[in-house]
């Protein structure tokens, strides 16, 4: 799947790009361990649907 399509499908359901997160993390916080893909996925799922989440319209 091309990068654009993959990012678009993620964005449709509010799942940000893991590679972009990893690049950001390595560039800015190299001293801390980055989340694995699995941890990142769970973290973002919780953020979208957890407390205060559920950004859905009628």
């Amino acid at each position, binding site marked *: *799947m091309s990068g*654009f399509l*993959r*990012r*678009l*499908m*993620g*964005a*449709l*359901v*509010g*799942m*940000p*790009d*893991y590679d*972009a*997160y*990893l*690049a*950001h*993390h390595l560039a*800015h916080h190299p001293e801390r361990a980055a989340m694995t*893909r*699995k941890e*990142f*996925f*769970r*973290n*973002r*799922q*919780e*953020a*979208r*649907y*957890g*407390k*205060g*989440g*559920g*950004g*859905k*319209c*009628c």
Partner: protein
Amino acid sequence: MFGPLPWMAAGLLGLGALAKVALDHGEPINALWLVVASLGCFAASYRFYARFIGAKVMGLDSARATPAVRRPDGLDYVATDRNVLFGHHFAAIAGAGPLVGPVLAAQMGYLPGSLWIIFGVVLAGAVQDFLVLCISMRRDGKSLGEIIRMEMGEVAGGIALLGTFMIMVIILAVLALIVVKALAESPWGMFTVAATVPLALAMGVYSRWIRPGRVGEVSLLGLVGLLAALVFGQDVAQSAFWGPLFTYTPIQICWILIVYGAIASLLPVWLLLAPRDYLSTFLKIGTIIALAIGILIMAPALKMPALTQFVNGGGPVWSGGLFPFLFITIACGAVSGFHALIASGTTPKLIASEADAPFIGYGAMLAEAFVAIMALVGASIIEPGIYFTMNSPAALIGTTPESAAAAVSAMGFAITPEAIVQLTKDIGEHTILSRTGGAPTLAVAMAQIFSHVVGGAAMKAFWYHFAILFEALFILTAVDAGTRAGRFMVQDLLARAVPGFARFGGMAQGLIGTGICVAAWGFFLHQGVTDPLGGVNTLWPVFGISNQMLAATALMLATAVLFRMKQQRYAWVSALPTVWLLICTLSAGWLKLFSDDPKVGFLSHAAKFSAAAAQGKLLAPAKSMAQMERIIFNDRVDALLCGFFMVVVLAVLAAAVRTCLAAMRSEVPTVREVTA
């Protein structure tokens, strides 16, 4: 891109097509005229009006850092490609509203609805989304409630938050009601929708443990399961054993939904809510695109008249005349206050450049308006006789094809009992009488369009149930997510208001929050399901009024912000749609409260039932004195709610006027933007 000339040409083409739609009432016109009219007007308004608002009114500056640039974290704040972000924002704003409202509005003919969608979105709806997006983008992506507090004061913020919770309750009830109306007595539909629950659970397990993060992959697997359920559903419905197991009355489905909503809000999100959201979002986007292509290929003629006799009121689908009720019946698609919550949610944190804001904020709302136009086209290409058979309450058309055909033909929309029976058979249902709520009507239209392109008449039943599944799935996802969000709102409110609540365990808090939230929307859902006029008649106007009032609130905030930016010479951009929405919602609210017509006014309806009860008489549909009492009680609750919304919006108006006056007295901008 290309300079202004092609956009001007598109606008002129759109206006020309609109003139044809509005003035040519001889032959049935082709739906493509309406498509061209809306797309042309949208293109020109995007190029000229959105650009004007961005450049002059908000002073957008691509050199100014957005939150995603200033404080990126790879999680919440991520500078995102504008096309990807457009998809994110559109998927978040487009729900059932733009599909249902226009279908209901078609009872007045296709013309009033299409004019309101086109002019409403260009001058009010897209403006609101765009302005709120800009305002939130300049405040670190703060939410609407927080910004109201920052710019208009604590009191206005508190009132707006309470109002938002009540609006959410009404939205959940009315959405659930649409699902009830679509699935009642329909084993095929009920089976496929029920199948999505185990399917989602399996997807949840898969994406939790087997292949985490593979959203596309798990959704594809889910989609295969969904189609299998759809195909298999026909056999289930026809089976002598399984068919009755999936056949439920509206009141049974009402209780199923209430219990389901409560459980869904307490389960871990990865197990049910998230996978359902994936499935429903991709199905929603895919089906919307397919519908657009289908309309272009089929190029159907609009069979509904441009205007029906119901523009003056007295229509069977919903009560009241064109003004003000058309403007609250079509909320989403023309202008929707709920979008202000989305535009101040995740999107402003993801925007990469201020220059992208018109495309995302204004553009995505234009796309939603186009979805509304497609729904209106759908409702208008089916035989008007069928439309009114499906959307009139049983109290008016009876419960047999013969009585319905006679009643609808008497309205002036000729239809035979044979045609009703034939369509019922074609779409594989038990009945199409009084299938109110908009979803079944749209499904019939979509079945016509899709079966024209793929499969012919033999596939009509499949496509009908595909459309029902598509609508029910994403409505139920919204109900899940909304109940969950509402549950946390209640928990927050209780933690502040009730000392000691914070000491309860998480489970107890969750149970109490969920219980209150579900009881609130369940009350209105139950009332709607047992309403003799079909429920939609009562609940949809309250939903429309509250949603448009939220839009007015967002636009008042935008006006106050413009004054505080010392940009008041451009404040008409938000003030004019505010005034229009206030006129529509306050007069509609007033009529719902105090109209003498018991079909329109809650209080006169209560008075009629009280008078009868006092004399010991029963009025249909009540079969006992207890039911009479409950109808009176429901009317009074509805009236109270309507009055509450009116008070909320007037309080926000007062705060906005005070804010604007204070801002005018100041020599310098008083706006509170977050810059560093």
